[in-house]
């Protein structure tokens, strides 16, 4: 039974897979940050019921959570090539826009998807803050900004932490989907290697193992962060 282990090693694919894994992590982190920023903004809009913005946010979350991620990626990849390139140029990344085009599109696409889930987590966390706290703060005459900074934000972060962990796990796995539009991340590298060596089994097995490793490491990281947050909260 030809498992192809030798081909994996000899073809220099190990290096390529590691490089792919680093791209995966970069895209995942980038998308997660973009998604969190979007999620906090949209979650606040929905919680504060800022009309008509919250209707837009509703449309955004409904569409992105109801339509398959693959379809959204195809849409962004096939159509908004120019928009992405211009955004890239605006940030002074003109060079990146060409060579890193799939990279940018990957972050934006996965970030948009991640953002819709983050929005729900943030909104749920904000809704879980006891209204009594905010009322008491207002009664004390605290200005709005300080209420947000001292009362709302810390509690929101703490309550949202497990939800954010879930969104992160989902975001990391969603990055595999950008492989279908050609970004050289982990899944794509495995795909190319599988095709050229004709040994798909070992390649996808290794890819799966790497994703598992990333999941495992981030799980333990999150557990430690959660413990730190809880301790801080007690003080």
């Amino acid at each position, binding site marked *: *039974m030809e498992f192809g282990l030798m081909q994996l090693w000899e073809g220099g694919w190990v290096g390529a897979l590691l490089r792919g894994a680093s791209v995966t992590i970069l895209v995942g982190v980038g998308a997660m940050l973009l998604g969190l920023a979007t999620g906090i903004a949209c979650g606040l809009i929905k919680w504060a019921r800022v009309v008509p913005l919250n209707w837009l946010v509703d449309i955004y979350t*409904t*569409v992105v*959570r*109801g*339509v*398959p*991620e*693959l*379809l959204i990626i*195809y*849409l962004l990849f*096939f*159509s908004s090539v120019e928009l992405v390139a211009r955004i890239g140029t605006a940030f002074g990344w003109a060079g990146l826009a060409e060579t890193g085009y799939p990279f940018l599109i990957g972050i934006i696409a996965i970030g948009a998807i991640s953002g819709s889930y983050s929005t729900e987590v943030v909104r749920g966390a904000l809704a879980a803050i006891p209204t009594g706290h905010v009322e008491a703060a207002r009664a004390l005459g605290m200005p709005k900004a300080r209420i947000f900074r001292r009362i709302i934000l810390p509690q929101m972060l703490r309550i949202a932490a497990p939800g954010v962990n879930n969104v992160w*796990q989902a975001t990391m*796995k*969603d*990055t*595999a*989907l950008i*492989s*279908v539009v050609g970004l050289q991340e982990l*899944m794509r590298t*495995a*795909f190319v290697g*599988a095709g050229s060596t*004709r*040994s*798909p*089994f070992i*390649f*996808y*097995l290794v*890819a*799966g193992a790497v*994703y*598992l490793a990333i*999941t*495992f490491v981030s799980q333990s990281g999150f557990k430690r962060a959660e413990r730190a947050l809880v301790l801080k909260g007690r003080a």
Partner: protein
Amino acid sequence: MDWDLLHRAVTTIGKGVGTTLTLASVSLAIGFCLGLGLAVMRVSGNRLMSGFAEYYSAVFRGTPLLVQLFLFYYGLGQFDFVRENPVLWWVIGGGTHCAIMALALNTAAYTSEILRGGLISIPVGLIEAAKAAGMSRALRFRRIEFPLAIRQALPAYGNEMVLVIKGTSLASTITVLEITGHAKRLMSQTYAIFEVFTIAGIFYLLINAALIFAVRRIENRLTSPAR
């Protein structure tokens, strides 16, 4: 407004709706049974069984569905012993069957977590009362634990069902012509990206909306006001 194009898009993509629904329903059915079994294994006292269930869940929830799909379709399809075995080849050989298997195994892992949450949320007092009343293990499970777990798990399971519907779109990467498969093909031929995406998206939104509506109805029925 290109009506010809819209008409073509709706009829072509509509052809995929049946496949999407078949993929989702069969995977959910198989996945639910598997997930239930895994959940029971997980809460059982047996170390071997609960360990297996835990690892199964971690592996299938910790890797992307796309990797699992390709591993089964291309990876297993590489081996002669699979190609020559008629049963195995019936499962892995065709895109549709393979996609159903991958989706079922995947949703089983998530379902087992959801049902496990349902099972351990049952108040201990109820179980003790059932034991005191002399109910056998099987009877206790059938009349007390299972119904209560299902009711508790229903909202989360409704979510999972929507995720499975979305997961069927990945079957398009292994030649299955469900909604996304037809949409992608149409996009390649006509370059009418936005229009095709909108039509396909609407199909999915309608299916998911109907699903959520049905789940909410069942939820309301099950949690009828206490007498």
